[in-house]
């Protein structure tokens, strides 16, 4: 049913219908509306979950780790500084192969302090071994939660997942979202059946330390599981499409890119702006297209190569910066296109909530056409 609702409320409803048994929550802007809405649902007996009001994000994810290890479906949400505080736990959850799902309302990292959007937080955790999904709009943000649980809990995968959506730009925006019913969700996402759990009747030790004789193999198996996740995502996304009409089987999604000369690569809500810019540029006769990366981990290198082998140039938009190098997406896209001859040009933009407009996308395409890239875009030189 189509509802006009705030992004955070839509996500909270999707989480509720995913039937988490344990939720651990800590407030942080711009994520807080999600956990407030879930608290209301628990208070009104609409959601039958244990809701732990922890004293920090560090404990939020640690509590999820414990609950997941004990065999429950778990949920938390965070952003920015909160995610940074969870850094150590993030590696632990994934290393112990616990399918925790967590929403990230993407926000900049301090210093300087900023509550506004970019994607530095989750992108900085690209190496922590979690699946990473990025939503373009609130419809995708809600749907990706069901997909995330399904993939994370797949016995072939068993990895935790971030579902990322841009703070404020999506989290605080009202737009129409087609909400599934509880019956729909139950059909798609059956109750969690842990492969193994802490259980007095079948005792196991979890989180043991590994000597150099074993550690490498643990990391290899973790990486193999991430690679297997590609198939699991495609399968779950296809099944979702067959059931509800929105197909998420592809890790990347093209928009007018099939005959494009210039391909733009973007992640998250920026894709909507890019599509509008492309429509205007196409009308003006420019062959521009978009390749949206919906799933950043596992990284869809093959899919990017297949989709872009024909283009003359690639412009990568990064709402993050690996300081001293480039935007992280540009680095990885260039790696994916290694051996191809087209230039791959990176643009760092929109950091700390700076607006990115249609005119900016057009300017970037012009820069790319003249071979200028690997730069910050939109600097206010008068304040430097």
């Amino acid at each position, binding site marked *: 049913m189509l509802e006009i609702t705030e992004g955070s409320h839509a996500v909270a409803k999707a989480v509720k219908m995913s039937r988490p048994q344990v939720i*651990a929550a800590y407030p942080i802007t711009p994520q807080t509306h999600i956990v407030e809405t879930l608290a209301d649902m628990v208070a009104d007996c609409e959601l039958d979950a244990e809701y732990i009001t922890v004293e920090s994000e560090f404990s939020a994810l640690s509590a999820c*780790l414990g609950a997941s290890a004990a065999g*429950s479906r778990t949920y938390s949400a965070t952003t920015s500084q909160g995610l940074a505080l969870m850094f150590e736990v993030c590696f632990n959850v994934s290393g112990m192969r616990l399918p925790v799902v967590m929403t990230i309302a993407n926000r900049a990292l301090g210093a300087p302090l900023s509550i506004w959007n970019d994607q530095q937080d989750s992108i900085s955790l690209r190496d922590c071994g979690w699946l990473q999904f990025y939503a373009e709009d609130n419809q995708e943000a809600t749907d990706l939660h069901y997909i995330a649980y399904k993939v994370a809990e797949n016995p072939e995968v068993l990895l935790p997942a971030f579902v990322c959506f841009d703070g404020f730009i999506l989290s605080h925006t009202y737009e129409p979202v087609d909400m599934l019913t509880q019956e729909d969700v139950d059909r798609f996402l059956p109750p969690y059946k842990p492969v193994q759990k802490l*259980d007095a009747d079948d005792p196991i*030790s979890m989180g043991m*330390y590994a000597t150099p004789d*074993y550690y490498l193999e643990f990391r290899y198996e973790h990486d193999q599981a991430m690679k297997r996740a590609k198939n699991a995502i495609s399968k779950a996304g296809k099944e979702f499409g067959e059931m509800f009409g929105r197909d998420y089987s592809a890790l990347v999604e093209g928009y007018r890119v099939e005959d494009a000369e210039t391909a733009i690569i973007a992640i998250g809500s920026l894709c909507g702006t890019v599509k509008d810019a492309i429509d205007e540029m196409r009308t003006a006769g420019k062959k521009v297209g978009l390749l949206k990366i919906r799933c950043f981990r596992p990284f869809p290198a093959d899919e990017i190569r297949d989709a872009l082998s024909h283009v003359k140039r690639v412009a990568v938009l990064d709402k993050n910066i690996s300081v001293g190098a480039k935007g992280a997406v540009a680095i990885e896209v260039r790696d994916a296109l290694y051996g191809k001859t087209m230039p791959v040009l990176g643009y760092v933009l929109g950091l700390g909530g700076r607006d990115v407009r249609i005119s900016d996308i057009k300017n970037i395409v012009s820069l790319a056409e003249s071979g200028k890239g690997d730069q910050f875009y939109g600097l206010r030189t008068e304040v430097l």
Partner: protein
Amino acid sequence: MAETCELFDCGHRACGGCGAALVSRLILKATGKDVIVVSATGCMEVFSTPYPETAWKVPWIHSLFENNSAVASGIEAALKKQGRKEKVVAIGGDGSTFDIGMLCLSGAFERGHDFTYICYDNEAYMNTGIQRSGATPYDASTTTSPAGKCSIGNSRPKKDLPQILAAHGAPYVATASIAYPSDVVKKIEKAINTPGPCYVQIHAPCCTGWGFEGEKTLAIGKLAIETGLWVNYEMEDGVVTRVKKVVRKPVETYLKEQKRFRHLFKPKVNAEEIAKIQAIADKNAEKYGTDLKLKSKPDPVVP
């Protein structure tokens, strides 16, 4: 020697005479098999679980150094939701409990989770090589509070963590010592059967870190109590309800047995510092009323 029928199995890698290993055994003797154990990073975790071997015959999990209370919170919530009855026991050394895990510990106690936290207190970071913690006693020489020409060792007294946790509203807080194993078991049994967050702090002398021979572990633990430098007591709803009384010995009898205090005796006796430590013991005795009053000999009967 551990018997193989125990829930904490033999074959682990602890030092001979390790106090913490005895704590592990006593914990599982008290809990039985219907328990989930959450271990913090530290000696106990490392000597008992080198993959692919484990000494734990109960469900056991280790996550990080500082989050065992938070992990236990999540496990307790999951068990409640699933309608399961296992007890949840979090274990940490003093570094994990007094210092780095304090945030998670305080949060879990304030929230009132039904679990028992057991600190095996060996009074320093032993797993990393004997560095001072908030539980290190006054004047103890450690690798980060070494005695030297202008240092008398650790310059601060031990943090009073049981009182801090009692102030959280914990229904049951107790201290114990491996020198009295049956008392340890009794207190853990009481803790796990008391609803809400309970805390047991167990004095676990470390032969390697304190500098004494492994066969003296229990004797050293006993001397700590007999000198008043460690007090065994129970607190119920914030009120001290039971204290182990002793006929006190001077603190030197405890200090001189351990290399961590040898700078107080060599090259010459530092009477001033020993007096300060004696004052700590006297204060403990007064605060908890540990001194056993011996009945004076009856007056000779005058015929």
